């Protein structure tokens, strides 16, 4: 059965490939950085040439752009004409439908014909129609959306009118010139040829594409005439670029001018479809990819298909049903043969020469038609519908709503909802998943001196508290409830109002305590927590020396140079976009062109400390700077005074000084820029060529930006090359991971003194870095390098070559960057705090209580990872930490064994609550090898948590795959960044966090949430519900079919195994299809065994799903037995009641049918845990529908439906008391065992779920008391289980109250003492 979906999926792919216009591309592997070879292979030999559509090469245009698609998109699968054949074709690729078709065909064979021909077709037709309607609706929705998009208006150059005219999106072609204004959406992938911005820059917002709200800068293709709008007719250049692909972050190509000059094109020149133009008046671009070839569409893969564990289990049982069916049919066939042989000549036999054996063989097939319902084929359709319903409720859960992002949970995979309830291992990324990924500058070290920023630490504490208060408002409400019964009462009585509280809790009552609204704190880069860094007084003091006239010492000034360079690097070594609320971003630079009045003075000042030899120059201002700056309070005033004396430039700038907004691609950058700003090294403007920096005591300086070597994960650093504004030297500022920079930072040759100094700085910095990591800070090193002009010239040439080449461009650029970033001078390092997300410790604790093992896979340093693990309570103080770091495979092997031994003896020792394994990337690489992975698994399996640090994306996925395959467990991977994509795809359930790092993870995930804490409710509540519901529904379906079909089977014993049925065949077919189909669906969507509150509070309940408690093999067979018993009762009670009477077949079948309907519906009532008015309505409706249908049918149907013409039967039956007597007795007797079993089971040995459900029914006071008791028992049983583990024999019970050894032996999960 697993083939079905594969076939279906494969077919969709085929269809997608066949159709000329393409549709959703098959879900390509999302590009990861680990597969660069793949891309370069794609590129070679496959290029696209684009020339202007209305340009000078008209004739050539047609041939060149023949293969290119138009911009109209069609995401629909079908057209109006092709719908029926295509849809049918597609549907018959499902095995279930083929089974139906086979039955229909079988019924056309005269010797085996069981029913009228049209009747066997009904199930097939109904299923086909239901699916077709679903497909059609989906397709129509897509069609409507396509129409809307295609009919958007864009301004396109028209040759006829010689100007730009409005046209629809779908008419845009490759080679068209498109003009867009601010806030317009880009209709196709275009090269930016012109921007109204003076610097040829344009900003786009990619929120539609990847959800990132910060602006991205795009620049005009170089060497194009600027200034005047370019005229398409004169566009002679041709563009060579790679063929359409789905890599959003890469674009390569070149533009060839008529003069054969080539200009390299890259991602910065490309405007992507469905992004929005911002802060740029007008731009013009030429379309290079259109329609389905755009990167946005290429990335748009449809929903994902995964098989859920439950369905795999179910497919097994369907096979059992097939076996059962074959057995029953064989029985009937053999019985028929024997029966025929014993009869010689009977008046009721139609003369026939067929031998009994052959007749038996025919009968076998007849019986397959008769008993077809036994295979619950409609189950597949039902499951699909139920899952849609479940997803509807998950998506509508208000608790998953994130106010700040205005986003809810996204369910991208539609068919694995129940897997959420069976997770055993959670693999989590750290940054951005457990933490906010909102970086806050915490402290720094410059030139070997540590500046602890105590004030700053205190400030962060305050924010944390406030935040916790706001976030935890609902939480405290709940915890208070467990302490005080009074508030608990209000909580439980009025649950609806509680969740309202959780929602509005942030704003309610906030005003009194914290006057500032919480909201801005959370929107990206604008929270005061990130912006307001409190400077370290000591550092401030040092910096103040800048303007002090008394400051002359060469040694001290050397340190000051470092300090200033350090802050300079913080301010400019980034790709931050600066804007102020009053002015659009690109105008900021305008200020820079205002010449500084006293530039000369400042230059002198700067040179004084930068080059100590010149420090004899007199300072320009004396009066103000003599003030004492030790106190923070006077700091600001002093600075402003300083600036004023500087000849204070334009006032507006000064006013907006506090309003600057930094938008950075990575949050670290913004944090550093804000930190620099706190020391008044303010980045005021950032353009392509120039930076405007305000330095303390010097006012605004324009820094010429020569190059930016952007960050990448291989180099782990970024650099800017600038012309120093004062010294006019070429300076490289580099910022990057400590491990990398430390290696690159070599002491400059020459002066002995400076060498030792560098050595000292390195030593000190390393020490501080280690400290930072221990504190859980993210560290970055800052370094610089001064280049001579000649060095720079040489480098520049080779770099230019690298930039323009198409092939191997990445490699060449990397090489070029590496040439530049050597011999660095270490300036210092920063420590950045990445705060934990709210409720992360609670969530992790809940998951662990739920029996889920949490692994953290991170690329961070070991110390940082351990620290975060402690902070989020993954590690407890009582935990025994096992660390695995080693350098070779042999060492690794030995280490693993050693750790095992350590664990074994650790287990014997009292006081440890568990083991945590910490592995670094290197060791992990060895451990994942074939011969060691067994040991590794064995070790990690016994650990409560595992932390893998310094791991690569590939390793992450390998670990997930290893655990999943070897331990046969359900895994869940959660992450937020591109480096988590492979892991998310490998795991059974992949969850993406839509956060600061773009949407790569979300795009490849099955579910996308916005905060880690949502995982708790998603798993514990929705997962539990979905699993229980679906498992119960599937069991119920099996039960229902077996129960009903067996009635027909028993009848065979009384009709000579001839394949007769005692019911009208319409009723027979409709019974499964109409009368009893809707209530199970509702049961599967709405049933709730335990309330959401209780499930959250008692995570242990999750274990029932993990252990597949609701759907075990034993449960299946018990259900089967019950079904067989019920069918026996349901057949034989009427049989004995009517035996020997003058009842005809239909009169006999009528009470059987009616009571089986009642039994089936009431069985569901017994099994249901909740009954709402909807249940009542549907159950009553189903019963009424059946009775009215049969009644009407028995009145109306005069000659229809031969041979079982129901005329008058049910009408007569239902007027007889005997009918009701039989129905009542049958129903009672059939349901008695299950009813009794449930009652006894629930009273004598109730499962945890039942206990929790019982708790739900208590009044709030008792509920609270019971909850506490439960938690105590849990804690006790946890220690108890430890004791059991250790002694591995009978338990010695120290606590006399605690006497339930038999239950304890069953495992730590049972909490039997609850009842004692």
């Amino acid at each position, binding site marked *: 059965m697993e083939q079905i979906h594969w076939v279906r999926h494969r077919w969709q792919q085929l269809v997608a490939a066949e159709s000329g216009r393409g549709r959703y591309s098959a879900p390509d592997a999302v590009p990861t950085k680990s597969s660069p070879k793949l891309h370069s292979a794609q590129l070679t030999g496959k290029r696209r040439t684009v020339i202007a559509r209305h340009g000078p090469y008209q004739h050539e245009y047609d041939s060149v752009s023949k293969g290119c698609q138009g911009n109209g998109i069609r995401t629909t699968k079908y057209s109006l004409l092709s719908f029926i054949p295509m849809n049918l074709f597609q549907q018959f690729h499902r095995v279930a439908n083929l089974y139906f078709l086979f039955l229909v065909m079988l019924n056309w064979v005269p010797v085996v014909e069981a029913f009228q021909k049209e009747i066997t077709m009904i199930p097939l037709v109904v299923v086909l129609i239901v699916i077709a309607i679903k497909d059609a609706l989906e397709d129509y929705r897509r069609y409507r959306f396509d129409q809307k998009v295609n009919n958007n208006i864009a301004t396109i150059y028209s040759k006829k009118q010689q100007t730009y005219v409005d046209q629809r999106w779908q008419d845009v072609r490759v080679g068209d010139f498109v003009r867009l204004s*601010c*806030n317009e959406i880009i209709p196709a992938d275009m090269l930016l040829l012109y921007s109204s911005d003076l610097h040829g820059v344009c900003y786009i*917002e990619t929120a539609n594409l990847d959800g990132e*709200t910060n602006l991205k800068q795009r620049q005009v293709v170089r060497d194009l005439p600027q200034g005047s709008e370019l005229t398409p007719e004169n566009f002679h250049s041709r563009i060579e670029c790679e063929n359409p692909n789905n890599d959003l972050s890469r674009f390569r190509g070149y533009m060839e001018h008529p003069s054969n000059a080539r200009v390299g094109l890259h991602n910065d020149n490309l405007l992507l479809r469905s992004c*929005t133009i*911002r*802060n740029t008046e007008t731009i013009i671009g030429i379309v290079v990819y259109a329609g389905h070839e755009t990167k946005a569409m290429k990335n748009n893969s449809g929903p994902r298909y995964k098989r859920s564990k439950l369905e795999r289990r179910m497919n097994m049982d369907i096979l059992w049903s097939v076996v059962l069916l074959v057995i029953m049919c064989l029985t009937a066939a053999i019985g028929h043969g024997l029966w025929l042989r014993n009869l010689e*000549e009977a*008046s*009721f036999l*139609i003369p026939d020469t067929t031998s009994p054996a052959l007749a038996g063989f025919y009968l076998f097939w*007849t019986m397959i038609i008769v008993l077809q319902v036994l295979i619950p084929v409609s189950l597949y359709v039902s499951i699909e519908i139920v899952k849609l319903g479940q997803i509807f409720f998950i998506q*509508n859960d*208000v608790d998953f*709503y994130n*106010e*700040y992002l*205005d*986003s809810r949970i996204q369910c991208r995979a539609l068919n694995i909802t129940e897997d959420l309830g069976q997770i055993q291992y959670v693999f989590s990324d750290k940054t951005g998943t457990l933490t906010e990924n909102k970086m806050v500058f915490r402290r720094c070290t410059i030139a070997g001196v540590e500046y602890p920023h105590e004030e700053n630490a205190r400030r962060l504490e305050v924010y944390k508290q406030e935040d916790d208060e706001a976030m935890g408002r609902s939480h405290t409400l709940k915890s208070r409830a467990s302490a005080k019964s009074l508030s608990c009462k209000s909580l439980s009585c009025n649950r*609806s109002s509680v*969740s309202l509280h959780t929602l509005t809790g942030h704003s309610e009552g906030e005003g009194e305590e914290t006057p500032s*609204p919480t*909201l801005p704190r959370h*929107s990206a880069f604008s929270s005061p927590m990130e912006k307001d860094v409190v400077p370290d007084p000591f550092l401030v003091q040092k910096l103040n020396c800048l303007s002090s006239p008394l400051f002359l010492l060469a040694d001290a000034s050397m340190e000051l140079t470092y300090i200033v360079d350090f802050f300079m690097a913080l301010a400019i070594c980034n790709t931050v976009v600066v804007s102020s609320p009053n002015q*659009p971003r690109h105008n900021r630079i305008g200020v820079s062109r205002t010449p500084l009045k006293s530039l000369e003075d400042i230059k002198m000042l700067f040179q004084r400390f930068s080059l100590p030899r010149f420090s004899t120059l007199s300072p320009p201002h004396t009066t103000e700077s003599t003030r004492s700056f030790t106190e923070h309070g006077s700091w600001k005033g002093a600075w402003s005074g300083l600036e004023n004396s500087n000849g204070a430039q334009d006032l507006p700038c000064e006013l907006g000084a506090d309003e600057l907004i930094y938008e950075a691609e990575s949050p670290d950058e913004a944090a550093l820029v804000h930190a620099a700003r706190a020391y008044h090294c303010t980045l005021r403007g950032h353009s392509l060529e120039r930076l405007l920096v305000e330095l303390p005591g010097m006012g605004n300086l324009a820094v010429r930006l020569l190059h930016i070597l952007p960050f990448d994960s291989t180099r782990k650093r970024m650099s800017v090359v600038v012309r120093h504004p004062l010294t006019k030297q070429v300076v490289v500022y580099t910022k990057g991971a400590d491990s990398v920079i430390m290696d690159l930072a070599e002491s400059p040759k020459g002066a002995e003194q400076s060498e030792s100094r560098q050595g000292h700085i390195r030593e000190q910095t390393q020490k501080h870095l280690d400290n930072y990591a221990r504190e859980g800070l993210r560290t970055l090193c800052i370094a610089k390098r001064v280049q001579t002009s000649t060095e720079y010239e040489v480098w520049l040439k080779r770099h230019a070559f690298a930039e323009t080449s198409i092939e191997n461009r990445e490699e060449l650029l990397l090489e070029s960057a590496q040439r530049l970033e050597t011999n660095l001078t270490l300036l210092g390092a920063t420590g950045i705090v990445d705060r934990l997300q709210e409720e992360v410790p609670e969530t992790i604790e809940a998951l662990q209580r739920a029996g889920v093992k949490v692994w953290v896979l991170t690329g961070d340093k070991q110390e940082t990872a351990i620290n975060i693990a402690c902070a989020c309570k993954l590690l407890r103080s009582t935990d025994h930490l096992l660390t695995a770091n080693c350098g070779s495979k042999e060492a690794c092997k030995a280490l693993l064994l050693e750790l095992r031994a350590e664990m074994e003896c650790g287990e014997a020792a009292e006081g440890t609550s568990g083991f945590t394994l910490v592995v670094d990337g290197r060791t992990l690489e060895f451990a994942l090898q074939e011969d060691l992975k067994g040991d590794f698994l064995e070790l990690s399996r016994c650990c409560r948590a595992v932390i893998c640090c310094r791991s690569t994306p590939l390793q992450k996925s390998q670990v997930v795959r290893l655990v999943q395959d070897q331990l046969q467990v359900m895994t869940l991977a959660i992450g937020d960044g591109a480096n988590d994509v492979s892991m998310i795809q490998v795991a059974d359930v992949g969850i993406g966090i839509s956060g600061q790092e773009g949407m790569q993870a979300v795009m490849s995930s099955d579910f996308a949430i916005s905060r880690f804490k949502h995982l708790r409710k998603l798993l514990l509540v929705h997962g539990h519900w979905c699993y229980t519901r679906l498992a119960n529904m599937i069991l119920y379906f099996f039960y229902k079919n077996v129960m009903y079909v067996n009635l027909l089977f028993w009848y065979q014993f*009384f*009709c*000579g195994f*001839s394949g*007769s049925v005692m019911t009208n065949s319409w009723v027979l077919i409709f019974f499964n299809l109409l009368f009893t189909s809707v209530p199970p669906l509702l049961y599967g969507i709405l049933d709730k065994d335990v309330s959401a509150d209780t499930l959250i509070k008692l995570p242990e309940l999750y274990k029932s799903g993990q252990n597949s408690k609701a759907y075990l093999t034993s449960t299946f067979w018990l259900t089967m037995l019950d079904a067989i018993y019920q069918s026996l009762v349901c057949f034989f009670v009427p049989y*004995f009641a*009517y035996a*020997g009477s*003058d*009842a005809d*077949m239909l009169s*006999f*079948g009528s009470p059987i049918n009616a009571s089986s309907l009642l039994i089936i519906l009431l069985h569901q009532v*017994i099994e249901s845990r*909740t009954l709402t*008015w909807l249940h009542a309505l549907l159950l009553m409706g189903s019963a009424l529908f059946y009775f009215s249908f049969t009644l009407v049918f028995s009145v109306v149907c*005069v*000659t229809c439906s*031969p*041979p079982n013409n129901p*005329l*008058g039967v049910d*009408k007569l039956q239902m007027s*007889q008391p*005997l009918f009701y*007597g039989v129905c009542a007795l049958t129903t009672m*007797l059939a349901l008695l065992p299950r009813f009794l079993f449930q*009652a006894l089971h*629930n*009273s004598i040995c109730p499962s945890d779920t039942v206990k929790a459900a*019982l708790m739900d029914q208590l009044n709030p006071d*008792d509920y609270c008391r*019971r909850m506490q008791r439960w938690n105590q028992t849990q804690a006790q049983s946890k220690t108890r289980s430890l004791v059991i583990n250790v002694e591995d024999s009978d338990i010695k019970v120290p606590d006399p109250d605690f006497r339930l050894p038999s239950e304890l032996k069953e495992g730590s999960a049972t909490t039997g003492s*609850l*009842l004692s």
Partner: protein
Amino acid sequence: MMASSYNAKEEDRHQPGATGHVGSGTMTNKMPDNTAFKQQRLPAWQPILTAGTVLPAFFVIGLLFIPIGVGLFVTSNNIKEFEIDYTGVDMSSPCYSCSQSYSWNNTKSCTCSVPFSLDQPFESNVFMYYGLSNFYQNHRRYVKSRDDSQLNGDKTSLQSPSKECEPYRSSDKPIAPCGAIANSLFNDTLELYYIDPNGSRTAIPLVKKGIAWWTDKHVKFRNPSGNNNLTVVFQGTSKPVNWRKPVFELDPSDSDNNGFINEDFIVWMRTAALPTFRKLYRIIQKKPNNMTPTLPRGEYILEVTYNYPVRSFDGRKRMILSAISWMGGKNPFLGIAYITVGSVCFCLGLVLLSIHYRYGKRNSADISS
């Protein structure tokens, strides 16, 4: 223009409570509705079956079922029923000789008289049945072998019966009524005589109307219309193979009971559910004076015109006299079943009560403490 657009953006940003992508144009609030339905908080009844909760149900069922069972049992016991097998398997049986002929088409009819005596008088209307055993009227191919539209008087079906009737569809002319069911119509004639104590035989009047369902007689079965003379109507059709006379001669004396609407025929055509069955043959109506019983105690003779062969497949033929109550014929099963289920429920109720006291106590103690 640009400045204004920028300001708008900034307003969004600083407006407290503003959500959504800043300046993305559409400010849709995606917050799900906080309704009871969507948040799955519909008020619900949560039945958790425990010994305590199901206790009353068991007692109620017990207390309800036992009286019903007793009632049913008494009713069933009060119904008088008399049954006599006249197949003639035994050598001693009066119908033994008749039963030896297996053939359908004996022109010479064989008759036999079976004496019997009633120990108890039948007071009210008596229903006279014939019963057949080991006769699988519910065999799939037998059941199918009929044409309902022909029986409903459809002219075209009369001339060309349904294929389902094969091989009893046509001999040389189309067969009416076609099919195996009709072909095997029960054709014994049963008559009852009361033997007075003085030895004289009194024929008991047997009413042959009203034995079929009203809907069958008036809706489902119809003679082909057009002519009152059935002979004309059925012209061009032939009688079923095993029949001795054509369908329009089933009851020549009563045009309302002839042809397809002959009640004996209709009763036969309603195929029995189980291989041992009875079919209503005649009704003996209560005497109008109400003083003497319908069938007084005494000696009777059943006169059988023995036509129907059942020996070939080991079948049995019976004649049954039965009265009828509000819950049908005599059948003690239901009453006994009700009593049994009722008492089992009651006992289970007691067991549950003890379980409730043993285990439920813990719950309640826990709660009240």
